[in-house]
């Protein structure tokens, strides 16, 4: 199976990694302590 001419596993590997990066960075932002000097 292909999407946009790419094998599904290629889309999954790349897509999941990008999504994971975004999720981790959002978690970082939410957990950041704003009162830090």
């Amino acid at each position, binding site marked *: 199976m*292909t999407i*946009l*001419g*790419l*094998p599904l*596993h*290629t889309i999954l*590997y*790349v897509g999941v*990694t*990008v999504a994971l*990066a*975004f999720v*981790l*960075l*959002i*978690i*970082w*932002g939410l*957990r*950041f*302590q*704003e*009162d*830090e*000097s």
Partner: protein
Amino acid sequence: MADLTTVALIGIYFFALLAIGSWASHKIRNTEDYILAGRSLGFWIFTILVVCSICSGMTLLGVSGFGYTSGWPGIWEQIFVPLAASFCIIFFGVKLNAVGRERGYMTVQDYLAERFESPRGMRALSAVSGILVSLIYLIGQYAAISIVLVWIFGIPHWQALLIAGVIIIAYTVIGGLYAVSWTTLFQGGILIVGVIAMAPFVIRSAGGLTHINTVLAGIDPNFVEPWFPSPAYASYAYATPEFLFSFAILLMVGLACAPHVINNVLAAKESRYFKWSPLVAFGIYAVVMFLVKFTGFATRVLVEEGKAALPNVVNAQDFAFIVGVEYAMPNMLLWGIFAVIVLAAVMSTTDRLMLTIGTSFGWDIYKNLFRPSASEKEVLLVSKIAVVVGAGATLVMAINPPQMLAWLIWMGIGVMLATFAVPLLAGLYWRRATGAGAIASMATGLVAAGVFGYWHKFVAPLPMHFSFFALLLSLLTMVVVSLITGQNSPETLDSTRTGWFIQSRGRAWRTGVVETRPVEVEAEKE
């Protein structure tokens, strides 16, 4: 040869840069203003400065070139390089900005000298390594500037270098980081908007993503796989899983601790910027990088189908982006805009490198090692002279570039990783790391990167990026030497917020109640 519109556009662009530099020069009153823009950078200017310090012209031309030669297995670069900006802000920025403000650090060398209680040895080694790496990297930036100007104007290589070199040197010398950061905001805006506007045209002119991927798979089925099989079966198929692992560390950590990138974190006005700037930097940078890579894929398809051709030169793949845009946008006005986009990418890194060289020399070597009594005015003057001398010398070297230019640039990034990553990370997060360990680790990394880089190029190819082996040796040296030497004083460790945390709740440090242990935050587990 370019038409009048293109010349006018580039002329206006250069004039705008000089105008910003001139405006910025009025804000310089002391060394802190020159080196750190008075620690006054706002959220957007700081975030774009970090992104554009990493996003160089060689990145822009090299990314599309890598896409052209290697297809999708090289796509990981599009994730790791933007993550370098986030890594730098989170793992270096949060602590260094806070401690830098409290302790008055002007450069990262100030931090290393205090943290490792080595005001001369550590400072000298790190400043010299930083200048050396920046000089190597600067030669590569000039090469990228030359590629663009020669292509647009049809002028000789040396004239192209001289025009761009003089303009960048001028605004960097007069305006310091104020000029560099504001011109970078201006240039970063052009770069981001330009790539987002132009790349879709190139992709569409090559038949769209589905067609592009189908053609790529026809050239080599592995071009649409996430990596090449191991071991590599062709010279272009080096992005194997083990290579990509070392590549991830090289790009994400190596670029994050590059002197011209990490020093930016000291200039942010408020620590609360570190909350969302890692996400914003990653988001913006990833979009730009993916689009540039897709442009490289598109150009490969255009060339395979005989619609476009790369020039017959050694580094032909570096022209992939240019050739793709040229095919998709025959309108000369658009060429002019495109030329400005690539120049913006190159110049925004080049000016930061020049300033890093100048300030490392003026502040770390001249002021802190040779003439502690030097006045503000004297340090400023020496820094400016160092910018001119460093930039001028590399300009001359770039006119007659070394045969192994690409190899030298990769050496530069590899050396950054092997030299700076371990002392910085161990210094910030491991209380047992000692000055002797840091000096030994930095020296080992520097020498090992040279040895492994030479081995990979001239003796036998290594399965992973050479810098990874040097990094491991540097880490081992840090651990062994630190454990057999005496720990730094608790006062120094506390005042530099050393420990296994990114953010402390802060009160202990402000009140001086050092026995209160910092509280870990979940975010460090990332």
